[in-house]
């Protein structure tokens, strides 16, 4: 695995990330992907959504509708993630990064191969709206309860979550419905809610890109705390510097195929070289 070489080769920011990070426990895997293939079925490439009656008959016969097109988004990815690791996923748009995370979270079925996880992985996507017609306050409480926290835990952590999100820094926004928030505010609150609980595996899809510099710093600190509490963190980002700062390991995907898996510094450098060549 990557970590043996990490010790000798990490430099600069990767060194800083490794200092913050706890020692990676190689004997306890948290996510195992064994030759994972993911195929998206896109409905209605030819005939629209189809009539209700044909949908009904499909429901009963469990046949696939003729208008379905298949997109092979992830092809044969295998890796093992360990406790205390922060892994960055990089690759150009449409390379299957988000798809892979969704599958690890259990939100997408695999076509072939298996994904094993320790505990329940949580995926934090940038588009995951919570309940937009409810106030931020209600969202914090409901989000906490939905994640399985008890009422007392939610009450205890409520103020921390709100402070962390920084929603109330510019006035009393937490008592307004979430639909009135700017996209950055919404993303910050969602991240704060999800980060309030210690997850075995936390996956962050582009969420770090939202929010201002202060919030980004705060969330990076929270991510390293989560790792200290023996979790594994996956980060998808198009910001190479964010990957370098947050992660010590990176996986590079291109058209669903794993190009490279190793120390963040090396993989990001190779990826930059690759994208630079294209221009």
């Amino acid at each position, binding site marked *: *695995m990557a970590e*043996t*070489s990490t010790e000798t080769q990490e430099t600069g920011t990767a060194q800083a990330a490794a200092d913050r990070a706890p020692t990676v426990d190689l004997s*306890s*895997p*948290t*996510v*195992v992907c*064994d*030759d994972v293939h993911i195929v*998206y*079925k896109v409905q209605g490439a030819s005939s629209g*959504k*189809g*009539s*209700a009656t044909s*949908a*009904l008959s499909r*429901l009963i016969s469990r046949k696939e509708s003729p208008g379905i097109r298949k997109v092979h988004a992830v092809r044969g990815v*295998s*890796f*093992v993630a360990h406790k205390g690791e922060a892994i960055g996923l990089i690759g150009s748009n449409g390379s299957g990064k988000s798809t892979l995370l969704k*599958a*690890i*979270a*259990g*939100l*997408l*079925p695999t076509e072939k191969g*298996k*994904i*094993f*996880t*320790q505990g*329940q*992985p*949580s*995926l934090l*996507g940038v*588009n*995951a*709206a*919570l*309940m937009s017609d*409810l106030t931020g306050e*209600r969202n914090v*409480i*409901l*989000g906490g*309860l*939905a*994640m*399985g926290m*008890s009422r007392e835990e939610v009450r205890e952590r409520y103020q921390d979550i709100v402070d962390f999100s920084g929603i109330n820094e510019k006035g009393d926004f937490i008592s307004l*419905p979430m639909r009135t928030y700017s996209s950055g505010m919404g993303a910050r609150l*969602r991240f704060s809610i*999800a980060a309030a609980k210690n997850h075995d595996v936390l996956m962050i899809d582009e969420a770090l890109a939202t929010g201002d510099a202060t919030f980004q710093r705060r969330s990076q600190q929270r991510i390293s705390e989560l790792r200290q509490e023996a979790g594994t963190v996956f980060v998808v980002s198009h910001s190479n510097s964010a990957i370098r700062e947050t992660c010590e390991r990176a996986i590079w995907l291109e058209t669903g195929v*794993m190009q490279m*898996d*190793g120390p963040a510094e090396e993989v990001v450098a190779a990826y930059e070289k690759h994208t630079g060549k294209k221009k």
Partner: protein
Amino acid sequence: MDAQPPQDLTAYAIAHGLAVSGARPSLVSYVKQIWGRRHFITTFATAKLTAQYSQAKMGQVWQVMTPLLNAAVYYFIFGILMNTKRGIPDFLPWLVCGVFIWSFTSQSIMAGTRSLTSNMGLVRALHFPRASLPIAYAIQQLQQLLFSMGALVVILAFCGEYPKKSWLLAVPALLLQSVFNTGLSMIMARITSRAPDIAQLMPFILRTWMYTSGVMWSIDKVLNKDHLPHLVVLGLQCNPAAVYIDLMRFALVDSFTASDLPPHVWIVAVVWALVAGVGGFIYFWKAEESYGRG
């Protein structure tokens, strides 16, 4: 990729006690998970209920106004214009009872069809047993009904009927109906998550069901049973919506006596509640791992 981990990753994962991601929990542990989220379910239901009229200036007044206006419209059309009240004593409470109890079932079903599709963001962002959502929506409808029942008590008092012991029968009737509704709501949630088009069909199915459930006319008095085949009569008598409406009328409206009830009405009510409740729950659980996918 370095070759440090063993060749057989699957065996390696199982040896370390890892579980397949997104696998469906067993029925028992699923029930436990839902019990663990009971505060989430009730808080969600209450939050949705209060958010419902948050954009209206009159706010929560609509909780009571909406059912009352509904009843007024039906009274105007069926009571006055079409005069279906012939032969039904206490037509106003009789009608209002029917409208409220029917809308409890129909609204629960409609809420169930939307419960997963309209909360995709939540489903995809956080992990919780998905049945929490249709159950929460059914509870929200129950809370809504309790508001309506408050209005009904006022109407009953207006018609000279006051609380008495027999009103307590409304409690078991409501409980059974709630279980029935929750089950249907879960069934609809699973169906629409696979075939969203069904949501478009539901208003028509529900309207047909309403007209055959004796909400605003008495099935007994309007249909001449001698002309109908036995099976149709039996079907009309076992119609769960009609059964729950009749039970509520029996409990609350004085002039609606035991002789107006179909035969074995309590047994039918219990059987429907169990079949829909337990069946719906298992049906929903069977596809637990698939919600939010795709």
